[in-house]
């Protein structure tokens, strides 16, 4: 079960921890580096807090993917280690590596399909059927296209299908909204009402 108050508390606490680490690290940083450090801090804080958003620890694909995305860049290692601890960082870095491999495998599989002409046969058999019912086929294609866009917007979305994509999207949007709310409070310089 998702628990908003628990999530907000965990998120705010984690945000402060992360920003503190980023602040210390960024003393000698240029503008762009500091911005990246803050972005990393708020993203990782959101992902870590979401794991504590329920009655029991939970793990979402988007949170793992978001952390892995930042861990994939070597220059983020020091800051991430400070925020997540060594063990947490090692897991994230390992996830980043396996994601990279999975992505390459997907690309190879897809290009093999295309090259073998199987893709062309598949498409031509689809259009044969759709000639009878072109409106529905067009609607299906539209939905498919929009799903692809959604996949590109949700972290880790490329690896998700159908129902899990939808449920991950739901979770991700809720967390994004909270991220905006909490960061607005920080920028205004006030503590948010968490209760």
């Amino acid at each position, binding site marked *: 079960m998702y628990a908003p108050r628990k999530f907000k508390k965990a998120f705010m606490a984690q945000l402060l921890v992360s920003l503190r680490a980023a602040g210390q690290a960024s003393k000698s940083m240029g503008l762009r580096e500091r911005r990246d450090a803050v972005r990393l801090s708020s993203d990782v804080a959101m992902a870590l807090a979401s794991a504590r958003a329920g009655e029991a620890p939970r793990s979402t694909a988007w949170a793992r993917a978001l952390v892995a995305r930042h861990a994939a860049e070597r220059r983020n290692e020091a800051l991430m280690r400070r925020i997540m601890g060594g063990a947490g960082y090692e897991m994230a870095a390992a996830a980043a590596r396996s994601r990279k491999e999975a992505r390459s495998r997907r690309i190879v599989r897809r290009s093999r399909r295309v090259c073998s002409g199987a893709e062309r046969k598949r498409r031509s058999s689809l259009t044969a059927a759709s000639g009878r019912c072109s409106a529905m086929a067009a*609607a299906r294609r539209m939905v498919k296209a929009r799903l692809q866009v959604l996949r590109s917007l949700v972290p880790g979305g490329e690896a998700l299908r159908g*129902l899990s994509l939808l449920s991950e999207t739901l979770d991700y949007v809720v967390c994004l909204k909270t991220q905006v709310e909490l960061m607005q409070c*920080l920028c205004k*310089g006030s503590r948010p009402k968490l209760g």
Partner: protein
Amino acid sequence: MSGHRAGRITDDEISELISKLQSLLPESSRRGAAGRSSASKLLQETCRYIRSLHREVDDLNNRLSELMATMDGDSPQADVIRNLLRLL
């Protein structure tokens, strides 16, 4: 919320997710003839909304990083940020 299901996905589960998603989107995108909302429209609105949230987060990240840059200074803002982050 997620989990691997061995059985078939029920229509109920799909419509529950869809209505939850719809309730998350801002009011303005829900206006219009009831029942006209299609899967495609819902997905389009969701993508649009996520993009706008990303933009807001980017903007807030930038503002926060600027605030942190002023932390060594004397402004009331700097005080607040310092207090919040307890870096002094």
